[in-house]
Each structure stands twice: as structure tokens, then as C-alpha cells.
């Protein structure tokens, strides 16, 4: 009777693809057999060969995070085939915008209070924080949320502008605001 001590069950990917899970399978470390849905989603949205290509282009220590982010995007796309995880980004962008407005309002109030009543900050009994407020500039979130030109409504990561701020759909050279189209 052959020993089965070295038997490794096929990974979820090879199980799904109905093929032998070879030693050195690119998917095996990241798609354990206990999580079949993870690979099923990734395969449905990206395709096995695209995922393999993506993983092969990364260093081994990057692949785990890459697979997790792909799995997240795939699941989001399965749940929301129209927007995928872009809807979450849109939601968070709106939160950031709302918070920026609140910060601006708060900063205006601080400035008003400091300008109108400078004596408040100079009373000997004034709390230290009141003096600090009179002296320091109002805090702003990272300088400004939005682009450097001050007109952006949404946070823009370097090189990855969000296309949904103004022009929702402009396939003719539009879509992204960075002119990369």
C-alpha cells in the first residue's frame, strides 16, 4: 500500500480547473482548498491565466497581498456587476468631501473667534489650548483634500485620478482626468 504521508490535496484553483495540482503550482499558496469561493470569484472576473500572469510579474512576497486584493475586487464585482468596488471608493470620497467641508467650517469659526476676540487667548487664566489656537494656523487635512489646484472635489492619489467627480462618462478620450486617454 503506497504511503499517503506526502499527499497534498489539490489547491482550490486546480480543483476548480479539474487538473492535477503540481508541485510549484502558482496558485497553491494563495488559494487553499478550504476556500473554494475565493478562487471561483477570481476566476469568474479575471480568469485563471490573467491571475497567473499577474502573480508571475510580482515578487513572491507581494503575491499574498495581490491575491487578497484581487479576491476583494472579484467579490465586489460579483455582488455589484456594474460598479464593483468603485462604489465603495465613491462612497468614501463623499465622506472625505463632507469631512473637508466640516473642517473648513470649523477652521472658519476658529479664525473668526481669534480675530474677533483676541483677548480670549491672552487672559492669564486662559487655558493653554486657547493661546495655541490664537497662534497656530487652523489645521487642515493634509493641506487640502483634492488636487493642488484646489478645484478637485475628490481626493486624487498620485497618478490615479478618480473619473467620477465631474464627467461621469466620456468614452471619447475621457473617463480619466489625467489625460492618459
Amino acid at each position, binding site marked *: 500500500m503506497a504511503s499517503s504521508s506526502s499527499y497534498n490535496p489539490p489547491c482550490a484553483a486546480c480543483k476548480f480547473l479539474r487538473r492535477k495540482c503540481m508541485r510549484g503550482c502558482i496558485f497553491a499558496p494563495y488559494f487553499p482548498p478550504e476556500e473554494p469561493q475565493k478562487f471561483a470569484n477570481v476566476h469568474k472576473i479575471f480568469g485563471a*491565466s490573467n491571475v497567473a500572469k499577474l502573480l508571475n510579474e510580482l515578487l513572491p512576497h507581494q503575491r499574498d497581498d495581490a491575491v487578497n486584493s484581487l479576491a476583494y*475586487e472579484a467579490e465586489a464585482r460579483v455582488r455589484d456587476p*456594474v460598479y464593483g468596488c468603485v462604489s465603495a471608493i465613491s462612497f*468614501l470620497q463623499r465622506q472625505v468631501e463632507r469631512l473637508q467641508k466640516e473642517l473648513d467650517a470649523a477652521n472658519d469659526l476658529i479664525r473668526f473667534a481669534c480675530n474677533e476676540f483676541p483677548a480670549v487667548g491672552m487672559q492669564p487664566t486662559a*487655558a493653554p489650548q486657547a493661546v495655541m489656537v490664537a497662534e497656530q494656523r487652523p489645521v487642515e487635512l493634509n493641506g487640502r*483634500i483634492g488636487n493642488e489646484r484646489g478645484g478637485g472635489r475628490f481626493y486624487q492619489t498620485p497618478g490615479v485620478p478618480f473619473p467620477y467627480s465631474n464627467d461621469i462618462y466620456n*468614452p471619447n478620450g475621457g473617463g480619466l482626468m489625467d489625460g492618459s486617454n
Partner: protein
Amino acid sequence: MNSSRCAACKHLRRRCPSDCIFSPYFPSNNPRRFAYVHKIYGASNVGKILQDLPVNCRAEAANSLYYEAYCRIKDPVYGCVGMISILHQQIYNAQCQLARIQAEIAALNTQSQQNEPQQYQHEHLGNTSAPIILPDQNGGSNSTSFYDLSTWFD
């Protein structure tokens, strides 16, 4: 008729039929759009996704697919999940700063009530005794996103 091929059919080097699923969303004057989407998802997967959607949703789906593909090409490890992480961090930072400013304003209010015989008034407030009031912060702490990101940020 070659000049009327959409970007997808040009990229795939095939004839562009009149009912091509890609042509309304991948026009020929924007080849990069389809190139990115094809690189990440593959043409057949994109076609299947679009095919399964009602026609009025396909434009938005094509846009979001392009955006996600663009993010993944720019950041092959995290894709647009990296942006979600950044936004969460920004929201957290903003809430901390807002809480700090609110505390400073509360301190100013307290100080003015202690030191001034009359309340200072904001020009928008008619009541002479009304303190500075910030608009309510709806949702308080990070509002629930659509998807469970808890395992991602552990």
C-alpha cells in the same frame, strides 16, 4: 469599413460586427481604454460581464472596469483596494483633526464665558448667548462601507 472598427476589435484584430458588445464603450479613438481592460480582465470576461447587464448599465460598468484596470496596472499589488485603504486613513485623520478643533472651540467657548461679561456671537447666530456650534457630524466614526473590509485592515 476597417476605419469604423471599435478599439476592441482593432486590438483583437477582427472584424467589428454591427452588434459588437464593445463598440459603444470602447471607441476607436481611445485604444488605451480597451488595452488596459483586456490586460487585466481579458476580452471574453469583459464581454460576459457586459452581456449579463441590461443595456442601460453597461456604460457605467465599462467605466468602472476601466478604472479598476487602470488602478491595477498602476499598482499591481493592491489595485484600487489601495485607494480604499488610503481613503479610510484620510477619513480617520480628518475625524481626529475635527475632534481636535471641536475641543479647541469648546475651550474657547468656555473661556469666553468665564472672561467676558457677554457672550461673543457668531454673525450667523442671532442669540447673544449661543456658543459656537459646529454642524453635526453625521455617522460619527467611519460609516459602514458597502463591503466588509475588516479582515483587510486587521
